[in-house]
């Protein structure tokens, strides 16, 4: 099976995340950079499919040079090789551009399944799987909390507010995963060492035949008009329980007409 896993490097949620004043783009240098949390689950699922059905796991990532760290981490979990799309002209790209670039990469890579996290922690749009499915013309198997495939048919549990739907399709397909799907493995020391030697193909927009004018902030279909640090919430009332904490809480709820 040709398994492709998409990976994104994002600013660490636990760091202070900022937008650049000049152009409102995400300041990717301001915070520590980590692999997107849900991508670990996507990589794990790719590795499990490989263990069950054989084949190769290829990591694909679009990001600045330092995204190489996230790619190495994915390789150290056990993926075989990677493709890293990196180009200054891509800075500030929106979802439409990102999906168009990744679709181009996927079109030149034979794949049976593309697996990605359902959402990134920085942009949090949750739309990439749907956009890729639309661009590639393959089934959208998103929000998967369980995946089963025999190499030609695929079925998932698609997580929903009420529980889940069972969804079926034939491969090739795009699959996005939610946290519930598995427990990602930790890279072993051996895996970390081996990752250093695994091939990473670096591509620029020119390699993909994409005009720089169609990428980056200038090509974005949306724009930030303004942004501001959220004013801190007015300090609330904090009481210490002295045997009456529950009663005081009830008083507060009553004063706010919740009860």
């Amino acid at each position, binding site marked *: 099976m040709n398994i492709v896993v998409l990976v994104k490097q994002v600013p660490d949620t636990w760091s202070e995340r900022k937008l650049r004043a000049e152009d409102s783009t995400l300041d990717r240098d301001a915070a520590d950079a980590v692999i997107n949390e849900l991508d670990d689950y996507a990589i794990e699922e790719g590795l499990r499919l490989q263990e069950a059905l054989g084949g190769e796991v290829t990591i694909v990532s679009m990001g600045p040079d330092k995204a190489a760290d996230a790619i190495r981490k994915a390789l150290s979990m056990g993926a075989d090789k990677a493709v890293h799309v990196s180009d200054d002209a891509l800075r500030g790209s929106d979802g439409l551009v990102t999906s168009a670039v990744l679709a181009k990469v996927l079109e030149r890579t034979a794949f049976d399944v593309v697996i990605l996290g359902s959402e990134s922690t920085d942009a949090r749009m949750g*739309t990439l799987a*749907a956009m890729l499915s639309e661009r590639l013309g393959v089934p959208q198997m998103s929000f998967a909390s369980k995946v089963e495939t025999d190499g030609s048919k695929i079925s998932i549990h698609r997580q929903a507010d009420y529980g889940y739907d069972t969804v079926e399709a034939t491969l090739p397909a795009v699959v996005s995963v939610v946290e519930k799907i598995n427990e990602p493995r930790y890279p072993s020391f051996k895996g970390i060492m081996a990752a250093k030697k695994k091939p990473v193909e670096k591509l620029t927009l020119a390699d993909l035949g994409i005009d720089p004018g169609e990428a980056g902030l200038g090509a974005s279909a949306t724009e930030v008009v303004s942004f501001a640090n959220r004013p801190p919430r007015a300090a609330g009332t904090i009481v210490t329980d002295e045997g009456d*904490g529950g009663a005081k809480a009830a008083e507060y709820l009553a004063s706010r007409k919740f009860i």
Partner: protein
Amino acid sequence: MAEILVLAEHDGQTVKKVTTELLTLARAHGEPSVVWTGEGAEAARARLAEFGAAKVYVADSADYEDFVVAPKAELLAHLIAEKSPAAVLLAATSEGREVAGRLAVKTGSGVLTDVTGVGDGLTGEQSIFGGAITVQSRVRTGTPVIAVRPNAVTPEAASGAAEIEPVSFTVTDDAKTARVTGKVVAERGERPELTEASIVVSGGRGLGSGEHFSLIEQLADSLGAAVGASRAATDAGWYPHQFQVGQTGKTVSPQLYMAIGISGAIQHRAGMQTSKTIMVVNKDPEAPIFELADFGVVGDLFKVVPQLVEEIAKRSEA
């Protein structure tokens, strides 16, 4: 007047609350036309009229339920081409965002997701990075596709004609590649759905076990609230994943959010920080969640919560 398409969220029988929120928003920017997929439009008419729908485009086909997302995107793209609306509003549910994404690609339009309000010039307000930054964004290419966070807008009634107009549109085979073969509904009983509820009571690590979540359920039921859980609680298997509030779970924006035994790590805050009122119970006075609290009790939740439940019961009998 500019037409604004509103994709209705419904279950075939009931119009979901978020649809009334979208109608309220749409009315501020044009004339709302609801897009209703599948059955139930006639029965829903009155409710849609109550919130100002001028028209209801009905596409009554099982395809919209039987296949994942793509048919709805196709239908909306068709309506954009036919009606040239000023914008399309959808609910920022998992599915709604995906419909928005596909629609954006189909029509070459910009998409804004998870907006908490829409202002002049169809500028969308978004709260990002766990609430640290508020952003005003707009679409500058194509027909703005805007997905709105449920529960962020207060619905206001205003009467509309809600004139039903059947849409003759056939979903293409291209949109029918991911087939829904079944639906498994998890036990939720009578409690409201997490992203719709006006009150959410969430439990975290402080509860110590899955059994103790019955305390959260008790408090929730005394308030007619939905139950939520922190990542720590769902990871530990104390409560099912679909109730997780936070960065990798649900984002909620209720009138009242009660965080019980939750420390308030930023990944949790990312899921609830636009809640209107936040109440906290935690034995650790240094817990970051207190920074968000409008009212907080530093104390043992196993003492405070039962007392609170008792007080609520007393007041409802009074």
